C-alpha cells in the first residue's frame, strides 16, 4: 500500500516538474491560458496601471494595480467605512447626507476618469450611486471622495457617470422613470404611460476645481435608461444613451419589457441643449437635492440642500433628441476611439449592431425617419446602421476598444469575451470567462487613446474558482494579455463587492499628478485644530465638552481628563501633529457608539462620544505608530450628573495631585 502511494507520489512529482518546466499551464479551465509570469510584479516594483473598480453593492470603489491584481486601497464613497472613519467622524458625516437624510449604504456601479481632449488626465474619478441617485467626484491626489451631488427627478442613477471628452459634463440618466418631483407622485402605478417621465441630468464640471453643478436636465418619455457614452472627435457634442422598457411596463419587466423586437439608443445633441439653456429656454423646476462638498482647508464637509433645477422637455425642442432602434433591450452603448462607430449591445440579442455617426447625421438631415415615439423622431434602423456583427455570442453587454481597430465585447449569457474588427465586423477571437462576465475594461478603452495591452473581465459568478467561504463567495476579475492576436488569460483575482464597470490608467499619470503625502499643519484651518501641545485643552460649553487633543509618536495631549459628567456630549477633536508620510494615528475610547478615528498627518478629526455610565474609560491609539505604540493611551473619568468634579486635563503629571 505504502509502495503504491510512493509511486503515485513520484508520478505526481514528475507531473508537477513537467508542468513547471513547460512554463505555460495548458488547462484554461483550471489556470491561465497565457504566461502567468506576465502578471508577476516583483516585491518592491510598481505596477504599470491603476485599476479603479466599482464595488457594486458595497457602495465603494477599490484600487488595484495591473498586471499584478494587488489591492492598494478601497475608497469609501457612498457607504460608511469603519476602517477610515468615513461617515462616522463628524467631518465626513455630511458627505452621506441626502434630501432623505443620512444614507449609510448605497450601490456603486460605474467609474469614469476625467479627460482632456478625449484622453485621461489623472485628476478625478467619478462614480454613481444607483439607489438614492447621486454622483461622486473622487480626487486622485488624495484618493478621497471630494464631492457628492444628489440628482432630483430620478430613481436609480444607473446611466452614469459617463463624460464628454473634456469632462465638460458627466451625465446621470435615471434607470426608473418616475413622476417628476414637483408633480404629485401619489398616482396609480399603472398610470406609467401618463405620469412617469425620464430625466437625464447634465452635471457640469468646473475645469480647475472639479466642482459639480447640475447644469440642466432633459425630460424624456418614460423609459428605462441603462448606459451611455459621449461622442468623441467628430461626434463630440453628442451623447448616446441606451434605453429599454420602451414598452413602458411597471410590473414583471422580465417579460413585459422584452416584448418589442427593438428598443432604442437615444442620440442627444447636448451642444444644442446647451444653446437652449443659454438662450433661457430652461424651465426652473422646484426640487430638493443635497450637494455635499469636502473642504480640504477646514477638513470638514458641508451639505447644502438645493431647491431648483433647469429642465428642458425634449418634446418641445425638435432638434435635441433622436431615437435609433436597437435590438433587444440594449445595455452597452459604446463609441469607438475615432468617434464614428456606436456599438449597441442588446442584452437579449444574438448580434451586435454598429451604427455610423456620419450615417446618423445624414439620416437626420434627410429626415429618414420611421415615425416617432412620444413625439421624438425615430431614425430608420438601416439609415443609421453601419453593419451587424453576426453570431458573435449570446447576450452582448459592453464593448471597449484597443486603439488598433479592434473591439472587445463581453457576453454574459455565453460567458466569454469576443474580439472583432470594427471595419469588417468579423469575429477574430473568443475567450471564456469564469463566469458570466458583465463589464470589461481596457486601460483608456473608452477614450481616443486606449492602451491596448491588457483587458480585464469583471465576473458576476466565481463558484468553484476559489476556496469556498460559505454561502457568500467573492466576485472576480480576470486579466487578459491582448498584446498579441489571441487573448490570453494571465491572472484571476477576487474583488470587493460586485465589480460592475471599472477603468484603468497608466500608473505614471496618477502617481505623478501631485499626490498629496501629508496635510500641512500650517494650512489646516479646522475650527477645532490644536496647533501644538501648548494649546491642548478641554472646554465645557453647557453639556457639550470639546477636547482639543494632539497626537504624535507616541502620546496624546492631554491623556488624563476628569470632570466629564453623565449627560455630557464629548467631542474629541484630535489633531495629528506628525508631518511625515504614512504616519496616521488612531483614536478609540471604550463604549463609543460611533466607532473610532483614523487621523492622517496634519489632519484634525472629531469623534462624538456620549458616555453611558459613571466610571473610568480607557482611550488609546489604534494604528501601530512606533515601538511605543502600546504606550499611547490615557484615561477619561466620568462622574455622575451634578457632580462637583471640575474639568481638569493633563499630560505627564498625575491629576488630581497625589496625597
Amino acid at each position, binding site marked *: 500500500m505504502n509502495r503504491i502511494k510512493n509511486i503515485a507520489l513520484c508520478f505526481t512529482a514528475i507531473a508537477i516538474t513537467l508542468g513547471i518546466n513547460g512554463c505555460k499551464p495548458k488547462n484554461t479551465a483550471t489556470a491561465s491560458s497565457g504566461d502567468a509570469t506576465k502578471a*508577476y510584479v516583483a516585491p518592491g*516594483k*510598481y505596477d504599470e496601471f491603476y485599476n479603479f473598480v466599482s464595488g457594486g453593492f458595497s457602495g465603494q470603489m477599490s484600487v488595484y494595480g495591473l498586471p499584478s491584481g494587488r489591492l492598494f486601497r478601497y475608497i469609501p464613497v457612498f457607504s460608511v467605512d469603519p476602517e477610515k472613519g468615513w461617515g462616522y467622524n463628524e467631518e465626513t458625516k455630511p458627505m452621506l447626507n441626502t434630501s432623505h437624510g443620512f444614507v449609510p449604504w448605497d450601490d456603486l456601479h460605474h467609474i469614469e476618469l476625467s479627460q482632456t481632449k478625449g484622453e485621461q488626465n489623472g485628476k478625478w474619478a467619478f462614480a454613481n450611486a444607483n439607489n438614492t441617485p447621486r454622483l461622486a467626484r473622487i480626487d486622485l491626489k488624495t484618493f478621497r471622495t471630494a464631492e457628492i451631488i444628489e440628482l432630483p427627478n430620478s430613481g436609480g442613477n444607473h446611466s452614469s457617470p459617463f463624460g464628454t471628452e473634456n469632462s465638460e459634463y458627466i451625465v446621470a440618466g435615471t434607470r426608473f422613470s418616475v413622476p417628476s418631483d414637483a408633480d404629485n407622485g401619489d398616482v396609480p402605478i399603472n398610470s406609467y404611460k401618463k405620469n412617469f417621465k425620464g430625466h437625464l441630468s447634465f452635471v457640469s464640471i468646473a475645469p480647475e476645481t472639479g466642482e459639480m453643478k447640475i447644469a440642466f436636465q432633459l425630460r424624456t418619455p418614460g423609459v428605462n435608461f441603462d448606459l451611455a457614452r459621449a461622442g468623441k472627435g467628430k461626434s463630440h457634442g453628442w451623447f448616446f444613451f441606451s434605453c429599454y422598457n420602451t414598452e413602458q411596463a411597471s410590473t414583471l419587466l422580465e417579460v413585459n419589457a422584452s416584448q418589442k423586437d427593438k428598443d432604442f439608443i437615444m442620440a442627444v445633441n447636448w451642444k444644442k441643449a446647451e444653446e437652449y439653456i443659454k438662450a433661457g429656454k430652461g424651465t426652473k423646476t422646484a426640487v430638493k437635492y443635497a450637494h455635499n462638498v469636502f473642504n480640504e482647508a477646514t477638513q470638514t464637509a458641508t451639505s447644502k440642500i438645493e431647491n431648483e433645477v433647469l429642465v428642458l422637455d425634449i418634446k418641445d425642442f425638435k432638434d435635441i433628441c433622436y431615437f435609433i432602434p436597437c435590438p433587444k433591450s440594449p445595455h452597452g452603448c459604446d463609441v469607438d476611439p475615432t468617434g464614428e462607430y456606436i456599438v449597441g449591445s442588446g442584452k437579449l440579442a444574438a448580434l451586435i449592431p454598429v451604427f455610423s455617426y456620419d450615417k446618423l447625421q445624414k439620416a437626420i438631415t434627410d429626415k429618414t425617419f420611421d415615425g416617432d415615439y412620444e413625439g421624438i423622431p425615430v431614425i430608420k434602423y438601416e439609415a443609421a446602421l453601419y453593419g451587424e456583427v453576426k453570431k458573435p455570442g449570446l447576450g452582448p453587454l459592453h464593448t471597449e476598444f484597443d486603439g488598433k481597430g479592434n473591439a472587445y465585447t463581453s457576453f454574459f449569457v455565453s460567458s466569454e469575451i469576443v474580439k472583432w474588427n470594427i471595419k469588417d465586423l468579423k469575429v477574430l477571437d473568443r475567450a471564456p470567462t469564469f463566469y458570466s462576465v458583465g463589464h470589461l475594461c481596457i486601460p483608456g478603452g473608452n477614450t481616443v487613446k486606449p492602451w491596448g495591452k491588457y483587458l480585464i473581465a469583471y465576473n458576476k459568478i466565481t463558484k468553484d474558482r476559489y476556496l469556498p467561504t460559505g454561502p457568500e463567495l467573492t466576485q472576480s476579475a480576470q486579466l487578459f494579455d491582448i498584446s498579441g492576436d489571441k487573448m490570453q488569460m494571465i491572472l484571476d483575482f477576487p474583488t470587493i463587492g460586485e465589480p460592475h464597470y471599472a477603468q484603468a490608467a497608466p*500608473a505614471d499619470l496618477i502617481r505623478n499628478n501631485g499626490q498629496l503625502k501629508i496635510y500641512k*499643519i500650517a494650512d489646516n484651518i479646522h475650527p477645532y485644530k490644536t496647533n*501644538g501641545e501648548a494649546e491642548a485643552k478641554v472646554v465645557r460649553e453647557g453639556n457639550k465638552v470639546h477636547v482639543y487633543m*494632539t497626537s504624535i509618536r*507616541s502620546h496624546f495631549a492631554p491623556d488624563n481628563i476628569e470632570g466629564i459628567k453623565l449627560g455630557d456630549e464629548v467631542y474629541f477633536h484630535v489633531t495629528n501633529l506628525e508631518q*511625515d508620510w504614512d504616519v496616521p494615528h488612531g483614536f478609540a475610547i471604550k463604549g463609543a457608539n460611533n466607532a473610532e478615528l483614523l487621523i492622517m498627518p496634519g489632519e484634525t478629526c472629531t469623534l462624538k462620544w456620549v458616555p453611558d455610565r459613571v466610571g473610568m474609560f480607557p482611550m488609546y491609539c489604534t494604528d501601530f505608530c512606533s515601538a511605543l505604540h502600546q504606550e499611547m493611551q490615557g484615561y477619561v473619568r466620568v462622574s455622575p450628573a451634578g457632580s462637583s468634579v471640575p474639568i481638569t486635563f493633563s499630560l505627564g503629571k498625575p491629576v488630581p495631585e497625589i496625597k
Partner: protein
Amino acid sequence: MKKIFVLSVIVAFVVSCGGNSSSENTTGETPKSMVEQPTTYDPKRGEGKFDESNVKIGALDAAMATKGESISGTKCTSCHKLTDEKLVGPGWKGVTTRRTPHWIMNFITNPDPMINKDPEVQAQLEICLVRMPNQSLVDEDARNIVEFMRKNDGVK
C-alpha cells in the same frame, strides 16, 4: 563539479522562464531599504543641504528665535523639553554647544538618512526607541528653530 552543473541548470531555468518579465513590468524606481550602510558619511556635518558655507550665525536674532519658538510649539515640543530632561527625545538644553548649527539643520530636515548612518544618533535611538519623525520643516523653519535653540542655551 556536479553541484556546479546543477546550479547552472537552475540558473538557466530561472532566466528562461522569468528573466524578462521584471524589467518590463516596472514603471517606477525601487523603494530604498530602511537600513543603509554608512559610506562617506561625515558625522560632523551630517547629511543634507547645509554646511558652514550656507549657515551663518552671529549675535542672537530675537525675531528669528520667536518664529522658531512658534514653529517648534507645533512640530517639536511634544517630544522635546527645553531643559536637559529626556521626554520622548532628548532635552534641548545645550544642544547648540554639542552640535554645529548646520548639523542640527540637516538632522531636523533630513532625519531618516542620518538616523540610519550617524553612530551617535543610532546610540540615541537605542535609548529613545522612537525614530525622530520628519516634520516637513522648510529651510527657514529649520534656521529659526536653531536660533530658538541658541536662545534657549543663553546666547545673547
